[in-house]
């Protein structure tokens, strides 16, 4: 079969909503796009544990602590589902992880912002997991089978992440004026970075068209961002928090909220490694790998010893 014929058949399958599985023929660029996107997604789950993990020992009570621990544990699981999905594309897991550590691979820029107060933890659950869910629900129908299956599993687990964050903010916002102010401050700092999570605007997004055609993505960055804003405004009202955007207002004609232009300079600065916590996050991941090496070595040695005993 010629290359063109194979490509035509591939697109036909996609158009008929037939999922692509690991051993199926696929264009190189489809494979590369998936490796880039899924590994970036996996790294985000793993790096995303850092700002929250930092608060586990400082959670205000045992309930919040148990919940935060369970959430962070889930994120580790999400990372694993996604690393497994990348591996089905013929990449080595270790290489994928090393690509993060050398800075070759990216992760969501949101995790380069610090979690300064306890209100940040609630806000991360509400806005950051909320934005992630908006993205991930759409990806449950992505054309690559292993990615879609990982997303279905992740989405099932994610919904508590957002709810626990929102619940925590409800408590803060109905607490003392200081607690409410702390929640508003967290909102002020996380709103714009949360909107940036959907990536560059459609006009700037280099891979968007092809990804839509291949149904890797089902919606564009701007469409998902708009859905997120539309869904979040009423939630903020119930909390009694003000969204830090003077231009945010309902547009009857569009049937959507209008909002200000994102500060793309800041976005690109953070993507390029100059956010408040980029260096700290990468250093923490590298240290985790290095410090954990002896555990993996010991497990390998133990497995070998046991196998030897068995065969003896």
């Amino acid at each position, binding site marked *: 079969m010629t290359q063109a014929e194979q490509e035509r058949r591939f697109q036909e399958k996609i158009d008929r909503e037939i999922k692509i*599985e690991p*051993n*199926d023929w696929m264009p190189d660029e489809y494979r590369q796009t998936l490796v880039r996107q899924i590994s970036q997604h996996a790294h985000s789950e793993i790096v995303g544990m850092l700002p929250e993990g930092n608060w586990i020992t400082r959670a205000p009570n045992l309930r919040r602590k148990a919940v935060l621990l*369970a959430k962070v*544990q*889930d994120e580790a*699981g999400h990372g*694993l*589902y996604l690393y*497994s999905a990348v*591996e089905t594309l013929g990449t*080595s*897991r*270790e290489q994928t992880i090393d690509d993060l550590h050398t800075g070759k691979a990216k992760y969501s820029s949101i995790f380069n912002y610090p979690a300064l107060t306890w209100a940040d933890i609630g806000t991360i659950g509400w806005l950051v997991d909320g934005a992630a869910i908006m993205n991930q629900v759409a990806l449950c129908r992505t054309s690559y089978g292993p990615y879609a*299956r*990982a997303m279905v*599993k992740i989405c099932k*687990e994610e919904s508590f992440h957002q709810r626990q964050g929102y619940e925590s903010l409800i408590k803060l916002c109905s607490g003392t004026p200081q607690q409410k102010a702390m929640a508003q401050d967290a909102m002020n700092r996380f709103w714009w970075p949360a909107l940036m999570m959907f990536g560059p605007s459609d006009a700037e997004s280099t891979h968007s068209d092809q990804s839509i055609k291949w149904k890797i993505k089902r919606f564009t960055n701007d469409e998902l961002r708009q859905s997120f804003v539309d869904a979040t405004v009423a939630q903020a009202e119930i909390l009694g928090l003000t969204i830090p955007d003077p231009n945010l207002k309902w547009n009857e004609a569009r049937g959507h909220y209008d909002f200000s232009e994102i500060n793309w300079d800041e976005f690109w600065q953070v993507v390029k490694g100059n956010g408040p916590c980029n260096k700290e996050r990468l250093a923490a991941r590298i240290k985790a790998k290095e410090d954990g*090496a002896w555990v*993996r*070595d010991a*497990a*390998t040695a*133990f*497995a070998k010893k*046991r*196998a030897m005993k068995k065969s003896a």
Partner: protein
Amino acid sequence: MSTNEWPLWEVFIRSKQGLNHKHVGSLRAPDATLALENARDVYTRRSEGISIWVVESAQIHATDIDEAASFFEPSDTKIYRHPTFYEVPDGVKHM
């Protein structure tokens, strides 16, 4: 030492008594014991299972995707294996 030396394991979970074990995903682990423990931590955090199988991916033999059409052809052509192939008069019940 790298985890690339650890084999890949496919994880199968029985969600409740009476159902099949079903493939849920994969993970890397140095041996079966750790593969089972990791599978528990990763795939059954919300009581999704009462029994787990792990099988080294290398031990799985699969049909060839490129030969699928001819491999499964014998069954595709035998439509008389389905009940709908047969015509039964309108009045016949319980069949």
